[in-house]
């Protein structure tokens, strides 16, 4: 018996108890409790009827550098990161979509250089559009893109390079990222994913 079914049975029994109290008990206070039982039981049953999704923390995946032989391998890893840890698909679509909140990334690998993509991911405010539609100094359009290499997403350099490979492959472009660029564990500085293990003060992302 699954957990949901067990909880549904509990909910049903609570509703049933409430109905029995209302049918057979005369004390007004207990009848009110019976009524509250019915309301709470129904609430639980409705909540158990909607899709049950737990939010699991992202798996601590590490890229096995040794297994990456070709740029296509990197693109394959990049695709996984794009839809999971990177959370890119929360805002971006690949192809036109009415629900996408940010630019469609279809063909982006052909339009932008790898350096530009890397900068867009790691320093989203570095290249921004200016609004000249008014007098005086042009107003900046702040980028809504988060710093992908910082918390809470915190992708490593290897993961970012893999995403670039994926974006290029998806656009039909030759992949310009090479497995030799990947940082070997122990040789390169640690990935920028760093939780405040014992930090005396928070250094969180700015508003």
């Amino acid at each position, binding site marked *: 018996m699954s957990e949901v079914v067990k909880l549904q049975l509990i909910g049903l029994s609570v509703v049933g108890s409430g109905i029995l109290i209302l049918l057979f008990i005369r004390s007004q206070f207990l009848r009110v409790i019976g009524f509250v039982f019915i309301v709470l039981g129904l*609430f639980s049953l409705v909540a158990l009827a*909607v899709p049950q*999704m737990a939010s699991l923390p992202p798996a601590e995946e590490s890229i096995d550098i040794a297994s990456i032989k070709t740029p296509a391998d990197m693109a394959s890893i990049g695709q996984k990161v794009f839809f999971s840890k990177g959370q890119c698909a929360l805002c971006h679509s690949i192809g036109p979509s009415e629900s996408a909140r940010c630019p469609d990334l279809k063909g982006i690998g052909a339009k932008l250089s790898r350096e530009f993509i890397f900068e867009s991911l790691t320093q989203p405010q570095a290249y921004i559009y200016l609004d000249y539609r008014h007098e005086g100094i042009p107003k900046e359009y702040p980028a809504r893109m988060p710093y992908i290499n910082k918390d809470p*997403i915190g992708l490593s350099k290897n993961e970012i390079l893999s995403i670039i490979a994926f974006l290029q492959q998806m656009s039909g472009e030759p992949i310009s990222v090479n497995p030799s660029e990947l940082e070997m564990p122990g040789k390169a500085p640690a990935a920028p994913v760093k939780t405040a293990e014992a930090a005396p003060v928070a250094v969180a992302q700015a508003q």
Partner: protein
Amino acid sequence: MMERPGMIQRLIRLIAESPAAVAAFVAALGALAAPVLGMAADTGYTSAVAYRDVPVVGSRNLVWVIAQLHLLLAGFVLGVPIFAWLCEVVAWKTGEKRYDKLAKEFTKLLSSAYSTTALFGGILLFILIGAYPKLMAYLSDIFFPSFMVYCALFLLETATLYMYWYGWDAMSEGGSKVFHLFLGFMLNFFAFFIMIIPNSWATFQASPVVIAEGSDLARAWAATWNPTWWPVNIHRLIANVVLGGYICGAYAGIRYLSARTPEEREHYDWMGYVGNFIGVFGLLPLPFAGYWLMREIYQYNQQMGITLMGGFLSWLFILQAMLIGVLFLGSNYYFWMGITHRIPGSEAQYKRPILTMLVILLLCLGVWMTPHSLVASLEEAQKMGGTHHPLLGVFGVMSAKMTVSNLMVLVTFMSFLMYWQAGKQATVGWARVAKAIMNALLVIAGLAVIALGVYGYFVPAIIRINYFSTSQVGIVLFVLVTFTLLTSAILKSAKTTTEMVWGRMPPRAGYALVLNAVMVILLMTLMGYARSSSRVHWHVYGVMRDSSQYAFSPALGYAAVLMAANTFFFCMIVAFIFWVATMGDKGKNAHGSKEKGADSHGALPAMAGGSQTLDKQI
């Protein structure tokens, strides 16, 4: 011969009737916690243990239940003084003593309610320090100065409560009454700060900011003034008024159902009306405060906003819509029952508008509860042409939901006005013109809200969020404020055509009041879960990761069962507080009736806001 109360009863009464016990408890708590906090404040200190688990229940579930109960109780003890003070002001302005009595009797609840809240706060603190030592050390390091302010505020609050409660009779007339009202205001003033300080700790966890170098005070202040602090403060303040009002209503509803005499029925019917009135008064601006909070969350971190409203919590907002919808329906239903049962001969006159309002509310609720994306199999999705239903998908987006929520607020406000004006006839000459203007404004406002909602489909999201949604809110707020002022002016000199007849409501009115209170409590538990889950696997979002076995947000069904349990526990605690608070009166009444040789009615308790007829018997 009267029975002597048992030791436990005497102990409970001592705690219930003496704010000194509350102060002593808080002081003891502070003294016990001080070494821990001091140790945590030492910058060199780091805990060797990150987590400790509690067997069987699990530390996370235990913290969840205790924190939720503490928060609900805190909402109750912050809502009741606002409720009591508003009633006292009404009594002072109108000269109606029953409001003053209602205020006094609800203030009596505060001492026992404060001690229970402090008790749960203490338990929560100890469990948190034990189960999450590393997180608590981290938060203590940042917020230590605010802990001190928090303790000082408790002392001020307790002293004010002493004077406010014990000085009620001594300061009942003239200038003393004004001073007493000032004390009531100060009670709420301190309570507000007692609320916003812990809010800063919780909101910092959700929306931390860069903490500048500087003194401890500067760092604490920087962390306190985080992007979601004020939206949460305002949202909670209004929500507490709603909670206080609806709990008063539920209490009145239960007493109404068990009333034995016509006087009791009249009295508790009136009390239910006051509770529902204040609850709705707070409920109307609450969606706007919620909207502001969500907007700030999106501005702070779009990803967090998406997690809340477009990610795994999106179905939670369908549940929220259901609860709010039931609350709106319940509140309106109580108003409508009040009109048709308390005002003789009004059934025919109000039947049509009530039916129209019911249809509008149900339609709006239907739209609000429409999910954005449907859960469908691959085959179903192919038939639909995507996860969005070709027709229903149109109603699943924010533009539609903002529109219907504004319309529901407008309709509820109309019920409120209809009830307010029922049985009264304006005598001022300009009333007719004012009513015509109000009717025209209402139609224009409704159409404008719908037009902006429809236009919202054709503009980029940022324009809809920044301009259209805020305009909709502005329009509805404008209607709320102007109509309240105009109606108040019109009714100032109105003559009463039909007197309200109290105590004629059917029993379902009592259940409607209980239902409303349960809905509010469930909503608070639901949104507490949402706020906590929006941090996903972070203790402090993006800064301190949850690396415990509980670093996940459970599915909605599991969470809902816990929420339902918490709601039930809270209801039982509140019932206990009411019972304890009236225990002394029961004794007094029994004793008084013996002495006066009164009949058995004299033994009935003078409950919170006790009926005047019963008072006369004492």
